[in-house]
């Protein structure tokens, strides 16, 4: 009996460990890398293949063209200033296209370096190899995290196999013992039939309770959560085509996320900014989630229906006549949760992909994250706040946190997380 007890104990331990493991659901926040920076700041004007001229000139090899790297940094931050200063290369560069380049005063040196590195790697084709997943940055990391949901099943199967093996071993062991006892002439009581063995029954009941309880609780907690929710939308709008293939910056359409609590779905007139001229779809074949082919041009025609736009007579279009599109909302937070996009996107520098997944790969969007409180809180626990208020990168708002600044200076603290500045407090999100 001692052996079976030992095994049962072991068994519990394994099960417990597995459960504990499955609770971990970590999302790690990552610093912005070159690609995301490029896509959010540069890609609306510069071609993402780095080799063709677009609104702005092709960027591959740009580092080599500038003698003074610091001047290049200056140029990127505020080209107008540099031109005004009369720096010859700046004046020359400004003549490459007729368009005026935007200014990016917020970019830090490391960020610019990351962008330049990305331009170099992308342009030289280093990134087009098999390691694409790695270069995906936070999106890739986040997607990898998504796989962790598969782990419980894997563990479960392994556990089941191991448990079966253990059970077989117990029977084998017992039979061997019985045989050896018989040969030694020891009398052993007859084995209790399997279904009448109280130990087995009790074990089974307890196991059922724990496993059943676990899944019931989990199911109840997940009620009304909509991870992977992918409703059918009135128009088959592919984020993959727009944000992925054509590299349109998220904020071009969802600019509200920079200003307001809601990211807002763009109004029809925003769609029409481009689709007045882009009337046909010539990209790769589109398929809906069931694998049926989708006619992109026909979907654009649906937009024209809403917009009241006649492709034959584009100049006659009146934006005020456009009818709104009844999109189905995917990301729903309960009413008692206050979430502000601008706090995260603008102040916290969080990439859209961190919460929305690799949107550039989705045709119709599905809900990537759980949007549960545990998921929010985890990120708040781990995300570091840029407290470097002495440089331009840190937000000056945090300059009043004297204690933390002192602790960082004295080495008591290595970084400040969102949690440290109250990010786990109820009334950060519930009021």
């Amino acid at each position, binding site marked *: 009996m001692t052996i079976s007890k030992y095994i049962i104990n072991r068994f519990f331990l394994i099960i417990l460990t597995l459960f504990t493991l499955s609770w971990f659901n970590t999302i790690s926040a990552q610093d912005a890398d070159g690609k995301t920076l490029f896509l959010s700041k540069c890609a609306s004007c510069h071609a993402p293949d780095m080799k063709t001229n677009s609104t702005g000139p092709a960027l591959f090899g740009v580092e080599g063209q500038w003698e003074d790297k610091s001047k290049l940094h200056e140029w990127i931050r505020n080209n107008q200033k540099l031109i005004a200063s009369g720096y010859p290369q700046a004046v020359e560069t400004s003549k490459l296209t007729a368009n005026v380049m935007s200014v990016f005063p917020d970019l830090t040196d490391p960020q610019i370096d990351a962008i330049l590195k990305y331009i170099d790697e992308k342009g030289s084709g280093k990134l087009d190899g098999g390691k694409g997943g790695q270069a995906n940055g936070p999106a890739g990391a986040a997607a990898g995290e998504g796989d962790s949901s598969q782990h419980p099943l894997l563990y479960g199967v392994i556990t089941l196999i191991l448990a079966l093996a253990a059970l077989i071993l117990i029977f084998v062991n017992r039979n061997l013992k019985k045989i050896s006892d018989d040969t030694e002439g020891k009398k052993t009581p007859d084995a209790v039939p399997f279904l009448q063995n109280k130990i087995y029954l009790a074990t089974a009941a307890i196991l059922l309770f724990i496993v059943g309880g676990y899944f019931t609780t989990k199911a109840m907690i997940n009620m009304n959560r909509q991870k992977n929710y992918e409703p059918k939308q009135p128009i088959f709008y592919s984020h993959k085509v727009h944000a992925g293939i054509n590299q349109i910056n998220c904020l071009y359409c969802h600019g509200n996320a920079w200003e307001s609590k809601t990211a807002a779905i763009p*109004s029809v007139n925003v769609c029409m900014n481009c689709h007045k001229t882009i009337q046909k779809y010539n990209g790769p074949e589109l398929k809906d989630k069931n694998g049926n082919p989708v006619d992109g041009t026909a979907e654009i025609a649906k937009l024209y229906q809403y917009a009241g736009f006649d492709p034959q007579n584009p100049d006659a279009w009146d934006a005020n006549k456009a009818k709104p*599109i009844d999109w189905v909302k995917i990301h729903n937070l309960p009413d008692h949760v206050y979430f502000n996009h601008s706090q995260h996107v603008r102040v916290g520098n969080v990439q859209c992909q961190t919460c929305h997944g690799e949107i550039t790969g989705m045709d119709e969007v599905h809900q990537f994250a759980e949007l549960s409180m545990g998921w929010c809180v985890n990120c708040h626990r781990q995300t570091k706040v840029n407290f470097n208020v002495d440089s331009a990168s840190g937000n000056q708002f945090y300059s*009043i946190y004297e204690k933390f600044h002192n602790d960082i200076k004295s080495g008591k603290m290595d970084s400040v997380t969102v949690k440290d500045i109250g990010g786990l*407090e109820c*009334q950060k999100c519930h*009021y």
Partner: protein
Amino acid sequence: MSNKYWQGFGELNDSEKFQKRVDDEFRDELPFEDFDSKGLLDAKAPRRDFLKYLGFSTAAATLAASCKTKVREAIPYGNKPDNLVPGEAKYYATTYTQGGDAVPVIAKVRDGRPIKIEGNDYLSATNGGTSARVQASVLDLYDMHRLRFPLRKAGSKFEESMYDVLDKAIAAELAAAGSVVLLTSTINSPSTLEIIAKNPKIRLVQYDAVSYNGILLANEASGFGRKIPSYKFDQASVIVSLGADFLGTWLSSEENAAGYAKGRRIDEKNPVMSKHYQFESFLSLTGSNADERFTHRPSQTGAVALALLAAVGGGVAAPAITDSRLNAGIAKVAAELKAAGGKALVVSGSNDVNVQLVVNAINNAIGAYGTTIDWSRADQSRKGTDKEFADLLAQMEGGQVDALLIHEANPVYDYFDGKRFASALSKIRTTVSFGYRMDETTELCKYILPSPHYLESWGDAEPKTGIYSFIQPTIFPLFKTRPFQTSLLKWSGSAEDYDTYVKNFWHQKAGSETAYHKALENGMLEEAASGSGSFNGSAVAAAATAIAAHPAGGKDELVLYEKVSIGPGYGAVNPWLQELPDAVSKANWGSYALISLPKAKELGIVTDVDYEYYPDKPVIKISDGKNTIEVPILVTPGMNANTIAIAVGYGRGEKLGKTAAGVGVNVFPFASMAKDGSGISYFVTNVTVANTGRKEKVAQTQIHNSYEGRVEVVRETTLATYRQKPNEILDFRNKLVENYAKNTGDFRKEATLYGDHEKPGIKWGMNIDMNACTGCSACVVACHAENNVPVVGKSEVLRYHDMHWLRIDRYFVSDEKDPDNLKGVVFQPMLCQHCDNAPCENVCPVAATNHSSEGINQMAYNRCIGTRYCANNCPFKVRRFNWADYTGADSFANNQDQKLVGVLDPVVHQMNDAVSRMVLNPDVTVRSRGVMEKCSFCIQRLQHAKLEAKKENRPLQDGEAKTACQQACATNAIVFGDARDAHSAISLVRLNNPQRLFYSLEQLHVLPNVSYFSKIRNTDEIIGGNGHGAEGGHGEAHGATVPAAEKHEEAAHH
């Protein structure tokens, strides 16, 4: 002699029953059927019931939760306007207007819906202050009882019509009419006046619901012209009010209060403040703020004014006054007025021309003209004269009026002889109402062309001469309404509508389109002040003679007054205002008569604990011969013994909707026209009063809470005592350190077992200066609007289920033995104190309430399971429990009415109407049934301010984050900010006033983040002991008082 601070008679008399009630804080039983006092085991079917409920709730919860999540849509704009950011509020300067009042405000607009009104401090005129009615006006916009389309009468019923159809019909009728009269409340819109002036056929008659005829005519007779000056309360060191409620309802009360508070603030190094005397017949809000009060009968109003004029050397003979205290008071006040050297002001609320003439003479004698009375900015809020209206009425009866157009005037309800007006109205061929709701006058008119709300309109106002305030729309009109000016323009043949007219008018007047746009953005435009006046005393002698001839009053007299919330009836239709407790009586939802203690005794009403314990109050019958009404009473200290006071504004018509219908009685019919026809008087000098023996429920707040005899909740003293012992509070606080923090001297850390909270960043703190707080209650309504605080209705208030997050606690100050000899009234705004060592936090079993690193006591509604332990453990009684689903926030739809909880009042359903709900602040959760709620320091505003700072990459500026109550306050009594920042206003104000600074119940070591400055009354009385901080109750604390200053006490009575 020490003072007793008491909230009600139960507490004053402090009996066993009161104690029992105090112990039993949540008096409601658990709502089980058949559950009587036998206990659970003996109850009829307790176990089964329990299982039933358990089974049902589990099944229901499972069902409700497992239902398929509904598909939500996100519908963007078709073509988004450029300047609009969904989810972010926009602010537009506009102007609140009602019945002649015009207050510049800023409307907060979220996604196209105005949801909050804030003060506009661009010009000093109102100083950014608002009143309760201004704050509540946004709810009127979403009133489900608004008129939604034009109507015309067909037979006895109204039928919907169209504007162009009505325009044709009315224009034809007007063309045929000989005499057309436009009856409105006071108009001070320059563009509207121009439209009317351009239309010679229309005669304008301005009519004010509560008349200021007396003051207008008296000023005319004194040579100033028929206008009302600006009063500079901040310039006056002696303020005498003869029954004028200038802090509550009299003229521009926000501006008056702002000026008044300036003179009341105390510099600790040189403690001086203005002195405020009030002569009145009942206890008004302004009287409650006075340093010294003297009461008289309403019939003596003239005599008192005359006696004062005689005493300041006016050279008139005054009728004899027998009341010696009153006589002494007049003599004392006169002496002080004379000594003030022009820095004095006398105002009177009387509508009697003669009394106002005498007041003008007093002001002239004391040199107030030019110093405290300013003629360069005339107050344009009241222009109506009673004779003009009486003449109109006679002409209507005589058939001399063919068409009557009525805008914002409701004489059927608020004229004393409304019936006569109604019957005269029926004789007129063409009657048009531009009513907002189906009010008493509108329902008698032939045509109704509903007016838009000010938040839906273009317009302008000139509240004071040369100060213009603009109205711009903040929302597209919700219903088919049209400004009455457009109608006037159309009917006179103009193609222009008013919106265009007012634009062109101001393009021209402001000089250019740009200048007008700039003015619109600011909300206001100012022209140089001009004009002055010199006093002409020729009419005073006649006035004195007339006053002397006033007949003496009978045994009992009745005075009508306006409540801050209801006014002349405007507020009766607004749920927030109906729910707002009157600062003095603490009652809401209905009429009641204020009577004095001696009168109660005479009527056989005993103010014992039963009187206080039960909301059922004795009903008295009051009759003046013509009108008889029955109203419940509230016994109030500090009343004139023979005066009964009842508020006007109640008893509105049934068609005004669920809020107004059936609430209170209309007492306007008790008013009467003076014999010479010179004006309406709002008092009756002879009424008969009888106790009916019946009882009716009066809904009162505050009286059900008790501080358990802890006296340090509120602190008040007199200026004389303060000068003598300035460190009294400081000594008390030092003593706490001595007693509880012997070793380190750190009361915060040493005097507790608990650790302190870390506060690495901002630490919010609030200070309330009780010397600046007038009890006007604007903050209470502002809090309602900002935080989606539910309206619960009378039946729930009666069960003490009122939900105000912020309340104004009122304490009467008197000797314990002599409650009627009221020394003063203290108003203390009481809200969650956000204790750093909060008793509520420790007892929550689910940690739904806890502390933030910024010093806020947080409340997570969704975590709360409704044990109410926190409310029980809160020493300040500021937590509010959702006994029912007041805001429709439950997962179950329409869960308001429950068999077990009881049916809620119609007003709760009104607030849950789809249109009414548009007023809800989308940034604040609506709370569901069964959760606790309380003041959050307007966390959503603080978070917003912080986010704005972060977005702009800078530290938060002091004053950027304002709470709603602070923003609403006309007197800036509330200071709020980061107490950790040594240079912030809150830190400085605390640092500079160490002698008056106190924390409520500091000895409990709850470490509040709200501090107060003690109230100081400007009297010579020396209060002994340390007994002048008090809630009263029963207390050994009072026993410790030292009768050291009894001789001073006597001196004080001189």
